[in-house]
């Protein structure tokens, strides 16, 4: 008989992100939730992943608990293979050594373009202003495959981003290369708190691949600002495992500061 698991949407988003990581590959890790994803993944699934941080840490093995808000502190820098600086960090990604990048986002559009700068208004007179690119633009430009982690709220999926902070497929197939971005790169997956999206090989359009076990794909996409193509076989994503939840709750974020969110449930 199926056991029911309770977890927050953030926990689910992190857990399914962690399962996407590929072992023995390099990951350029963005600030915030991507850090937690990388930590969880490295502890449980991909011990030999090499994390790279824009502040110059190559291959650190993070110390827990995670210190909220920080990126360059000793906890996230510990036992690196190499300590350098920002220009060298981006040299690794620009010359093709970074297999994956992982970034958060305020908005995503059908071509996986990311906005993390402002919502509403114009650049000079924004409605609400946020942190902006940081190194996100470089990560999304240089890494072979970019994974976007974003809370599943309909208003975050828009036909056109208010500001194109970090490039997805821009205006469609071939547009990245035409703009001069490195060939063969681009967004790979969008991990949300309810579902997983990929990008169609031909059209480069955001496409629903899978949903959390128990959710109806139609419900998942109905609030989005555009209707994404649906994969022929929408897969089902298991909820967080007991071990994922234990690590997140007891070791990574025991103060429950970062991994808040709305409670959900699904059968294990």
């Amino acid at each position, binding site marked *: 008989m199926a056991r029911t698991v309770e977890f927050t949407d953030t926990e689910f988003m992190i857990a399914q992100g962690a399962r996407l990581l590929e072992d023995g590959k390099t990951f350029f890790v963005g*600030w915030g939730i991507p850090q937690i994803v990388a930590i969880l993944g490295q502890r449980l699934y991909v011990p030999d992943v090499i994390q790279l941080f*824009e*502040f*110059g*840490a190559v291959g650190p093995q993070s*110390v827990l608990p995670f*210190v909220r*808000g*920080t*990126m*360059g*502190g*000793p*906890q996230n*820098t*510990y*036992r*690196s293979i190499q*300590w*350098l*600086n*920002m*220009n060298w960090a*981006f040299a690794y990604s*620009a010359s093709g050594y970074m297999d994956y990048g992982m970034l958060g986002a305020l908005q995503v559009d059908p071509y996986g373009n990311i906005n993390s*700068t402002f919502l509403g*208004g114009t*650049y*000079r*007179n*924004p*409605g*609400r*202003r*946020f*942190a*902006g*690119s*940081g*190194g*996100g*633009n*470089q990560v999304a*430009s*240089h890494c072979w495959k970019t994974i976007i982690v974003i809370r599943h709220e309909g208003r975050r999926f828009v036909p056109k981003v208010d*500001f*194109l*902070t*970090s*490039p997805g497929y*821009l205006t469609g197939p071939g*547009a*990245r290369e*035409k*703009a*001069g*971005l*490195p060939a063969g790169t681009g967004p790979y997956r969008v991990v949300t708190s309810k579902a997983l999206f990929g990008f169609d090989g031909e059209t480069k359009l955001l496409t629903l691949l899978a949903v959390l076990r128990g959710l109806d794909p139609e419900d998942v996409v109905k609030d989005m600002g555009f209707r994404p193509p649906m994969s022929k076989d929408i897969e089902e994503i298991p909820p967080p495992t007991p071990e994922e939840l234990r690590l997140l709750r007891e070791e990574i974020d025991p103060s429950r500061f970062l991994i808040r969110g709305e409670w959900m449930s699904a059968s294990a």
Partner: protein
Amino acid sequence: MNIRREGDIEYRFEHPDDFRRFVQEQKSRKAEPKLCPAKEAVSTFVADGDYIVYDFSSLTRGPQSLIREVIRQRRKDLWIGAEFTLHESALLTGAGCATRIDVGFLGYGGYIGQAVCEGRVRVYEWTNGGLALRLLAGARGVPFLPTRDLLGSDHMSASAAKVIGDPYTGLPVAVVPALHPDVAFLHVHQADVYGDARIFGTNLFALEAAMASHRVIISAEEIVDPEEFRKDPMRTTIPYFLVDAVVHAPFGAYPGAMPARYELDLPHVDILNGIRNEEQMQTYLHENVYSVADHEEFLDKRVGARKMSELRRKASIVEGYR
């Protein structure tokens, strides 16, 4: 200060020959004692209207005591360039010091976002990679450097980056202009009185910024014998002849962490994160900046020996930081 415009965008730019001339005429190569109080370093080398750059962030090895001193001296119309303006952008804007910010990452909390929306501070979007590259261009004495990012993004119109054709492939390549700040603030683990300095751990662009800036103020946790540097030259981050002033500032990164020296003060950081409006901002500034004469009084009256000891004890990760 040299300001140029491309369309709607203003940006700091100096012809490389003008910067070189400054370096020739105004930067001494002599090993002279430069140790001085923060008050003097800031009053001598930071003027209204200056462009200031700093390494790293308010949470990690940021020059927080120098930033508080700038606020205390009520500098005006500053232009800030930094990768991580986590709380600095809010404090400097809230104090009426900064009117323009080149980022990077704009920072935490609602205050700074609100200030941008209200037009109290202008933000230009160079991105972290673009800013680090601008400083590298300045340090390398070239007017620009190329990069294969920024392309296709809205940063091309929110900064003065341009697209040119690569002379070898014809490929579109983005270029950014060199940056020569008026002043660089660098908080370091160790310095000598002449300005030789060591940072342990990673840095964002410490040497680039020191080489590309007109003036460099080092604040250091510890002042060490100059001989130490010659005994171990691989560990020198900044050589003295780039430096104009050295401030001895234990706990200079507080409330942020100094790797392997002390941890960040999370409750204090939470106060910063919580600043949402003008009243909270002015209360914070009064309490932590204006009401104390200097960094030493701040440590004595607002932080206290007990907390400093506790933060030192918490800095248990020391491996590699040497």
